[in-house]
């Protein structure tokens, strides 16, 4: 390892970064774009869900229930006079569910009998349907409680539930999506940056010229790793800043822990990129491989959106090979729960091992030869 050669290579790389906007676009524009797309576009919360309310005979009771629905942030009720009209609305996707108050609803209630509410939920989007079901129950339980309070006859329920929601009390899905998203973005930046720039050297024939100089393979690799490490960290900091200040995701844990773990993960991602570039010597192929073997698994198998516990056993095993899985876990912990050391340590250890594996493999596979 020779300091002068390494310095020369790094200076060259920085000059290229400054003059070729594509690296800057990958490191800084892409994170912003992806964060905006996912931060604003993807939400797993059900809000303002249109539902049809069928009221055969409007009374004080029914309008109180409709009022309850209207006040809830989750629903947009619309009143229909007949069940047929409401069903039609579900069929044409103008409503996601139906609440059916039959003509004898108020009468039975007033008589002290059990009144039934018909509920019909559009189950095409299974996830949404379940949420909708739960919220609907919440609405009329609330309504019942208030009504009982009003009548001075407290509702007697043998078991009383006392909810406490930890870490994300508002249950905002964005708060856990955005940190997970940072892991996906970093995977893409790290792997794409190195895979593309090394492939570019092969394409332009500069690699051949480099190899015929006294420079060593380790120096060539480090000369790539160091500049793009700083680029990647820049992209990382930008993403964190956006998460905290734009998307108002709380950062409960310590910033330095976040920085350290990110650096570790970036090494893994850059290592994957370098390993890809030792196989693919043209930018198009390198880009395709980087997206298929790093970005897609990070997206689907990291637990960023889809819960790993509910995957089939075989897929759960595969997720252990996805570096983003460990980083998603770290990020969600640091952002929402704080510095929970057992989680951070084990996941960091896994990242460290993977970084060593990928970088070691790259060094092992790279020879200063053209074949």
């Amino acid at each position, binding site marked *: 390892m020779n300091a002068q050669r390494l310095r020369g*290579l790094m200076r*060259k790389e920085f*000059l290229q970064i400054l003059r070729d906007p594509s690296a800057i676009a990958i490191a800084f524009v892409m994170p912003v774009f992806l964060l905006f797309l996912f931060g604003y576009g993807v939400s797993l919360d059900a809000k303002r869900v249109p539902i049809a309310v069928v009221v055969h005979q409007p009374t004080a009771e029914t309008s109180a229930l409709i009022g309850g629905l209207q006040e809830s942030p989750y629903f947009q009720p619309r009143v229909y006079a007949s069940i047929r009209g409401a069903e039609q609305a579900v069929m044409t996707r103008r409503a996601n569910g139906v609440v059916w108050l039959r003509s004898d609803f108020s009468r039975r209630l007033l008589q002290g009998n059990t009144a039934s509410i018909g509920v019909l939920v559009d189950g095409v989007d299974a996830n949404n349907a379940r949420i909708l079901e739960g919220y609907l129950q919440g609405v009329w339980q609330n309504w019942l409680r208030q009504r009982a309070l009003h009548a001075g006859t407290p509702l007697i329920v043998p078991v009383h539930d006392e909810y406490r929601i930890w870490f994300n009390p508002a249950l905002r899905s964005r708060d856990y999506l955005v940190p997970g998203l940072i892991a996906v973005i970093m995977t893409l930046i790290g792997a794409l940056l190195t895979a593309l720039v090394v492939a570019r050297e092969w394409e332009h024939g500069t690699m051949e010229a480099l190899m*015929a100089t006294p420079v060593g393979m380790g120096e060539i690799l480090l000369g790539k790793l160091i500049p793009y490490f700083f680029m990647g960290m820049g992209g990382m900091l930008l993403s964190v800043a956006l998460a905290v200040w734009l998307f108002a995701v709380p950062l409960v844990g310590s910033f330095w822990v976040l920085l350290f773990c990110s650096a570790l993960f970036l090494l893994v991602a850059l290592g994957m990129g370098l390993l890809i570039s030792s196989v693919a010597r043209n930018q198009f192929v390198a880009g395709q491989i980087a997206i298929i073997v790093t970005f897609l698994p990070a997206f689907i198998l990291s637990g960023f959106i889809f819960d790993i516990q509910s995957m089939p056993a075989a897929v759960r095993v595969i997720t252990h090979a996805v570096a983003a899985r460990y980083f998603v876990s770290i990020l969600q912990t640091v952002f929402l729960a704080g510095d929970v050391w057992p989680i951070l340590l084990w996941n960091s250890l896994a990242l460290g091992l993977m970084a060593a594996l990928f970088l070691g493999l790259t060094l092992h596979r790279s020879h*200063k030869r053209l074949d």
Partner: protein
Amino acid sequence: MAASPLRFIQVGKHFSRGAARVRALDALDLNLTAGSITGLLGPDGAGKTTLMRLAAGLLLPDVGTIQVLGADTRARAAKIQAEIGYMPQQFGLYEDLTVQENLDLHADLQGLSAEAARTRQRELLRMTALGPFGTRRAGTLSGGMKQKLGLACALLRVPPLLLLDEPTVGVDPIARRELWGIIQGLKDQGVTVLMSTAYFDEAERCDEIILLHQGKLLKKDTLAAFRLPLQGRCFRVTEDTGNKRRLRESLQRRPGVQDARIVAAGVRVLCQGPSVEAAPGERWQAETPTFEDAFVDLLGTAEMPDEAAPAAPAAATADQDAEIIIEVRDLRKRFGNFEAVKGNTFMVRKGQIFGLLGANGAGKTTTFRMLCGLLPASSGTLRVAGVDMRRATAQARARIGYVSQKFSLYGNLSCDQNLAFFSAAYGLRGTWRRQRLQWAVQKFQLSDYREVNADQLPLGIKQRLALACALLHAPPILFLDEPTSGVDPLARREFWQRVNALAESGVTVMITTHFLEEAEYCDHLVLLSQGEVLAQGSPQQVRALAQDKTHPEPSMEEAFIHLIQTHENQGRRAS
């Protein structure tokens, strides 16, 4: 005597391409003489680049050993690479970096101290005349300047052995001359140089020549030794009619003639023996053999198909009063503030071979693209085959064939599939289509390659296929953009025979080239420099412009350099 700086001992190298194993080099023995310039020549695929990479330790031999400066490339590649200078075919420059930054990088890689780097860089910048361009990005330099910069990067430390892989390809004659000045200077400093080249005149400047063919060493010797067996077999033939093209055809078919090619003053003939019958009206004059003769003699002339005389030769003469088929008046093209083509005027007549010549950046390609309707002109008149190119480009395109520099074939389609695609693209149908496809396969001898993918074809065959595709719709005009750049000398000769035959059959051929000896094949030349027409006329007329006391009989290259330098000097004086 010093030990040989480069030794190949029974070296063999294979590459696997898919399932097939391709032999690149076979049982090669080689020894370079210290302090000499050795030229490496051979047709495409002869193994020149493989040999260079093996010598640089970038590839390892399958069998045999290679010793560079006394070290084995298998065991001590790093030491070898620390000492030699190597310039790959693709320059190896960082296009986003300036001239100075590229030099700085290589100074760091070579471990030069800041002081030593500054001195050496100043020296190199002076030597390459790149001094004024220090802050220019390498990507914006012309081909010749890039080559010089690439060479300078390889020379930051004066290496005992310098390997140059086709350093003069794609370089205009002036830059080529400068590069040779640098290489000569290195020899005087005791550097051993091995360079591959596609130019015969460069081979003549080397102390020794290595001729490779299909991975085997055909001959390694001095120029004199190459020429010796050809004494008394080379002639220059002239005839009163002055139609060199037809004279060449006639001579090529004559028994005892091995090769006939058009040169400045007539047709040059290489005979198999000393005695060949001269036809009446021909004047035969003995000539000194050149390396090109030796090359043809050793490798044979590429075979040509049925050389049946054109159907109606009388009608197809490129008369000076034939109908005008391309008319260009006051043609201009501006890119922003930069005027690439500055009010040019010229006419092309039917059945002519019309050559567009110029240094890199002279406006050849821009002019060419406007003529083909690929680029709109900024102002001026442009009529091709009677159609105004500024209005009805689509109409005119149906009447032209175009072969671009990169051939524009579909690499993963077979020969047949490429032909079928282009015939469909030109809208050929039914019997006519079948006839044309059959004609293409037969005329361009593609029957052995019909199922082979275009990517897998040797360059020469690929070029035939590209030509066939461009001619499927039987266009009266054919545009060829640098068709011979990067093609080996044999394939180039064969290509010109085809172009001649086309012109004889009445097709007008418009061609750009930077091989100046090829200009002799043209009926009419236009010489461009900095966007302006510098000279035009027949090759004789253009050469005559450069005639003076010191050069009573200038070659096309000398004329070219003379005219351009005069023009540039005038330009400098004017500004």
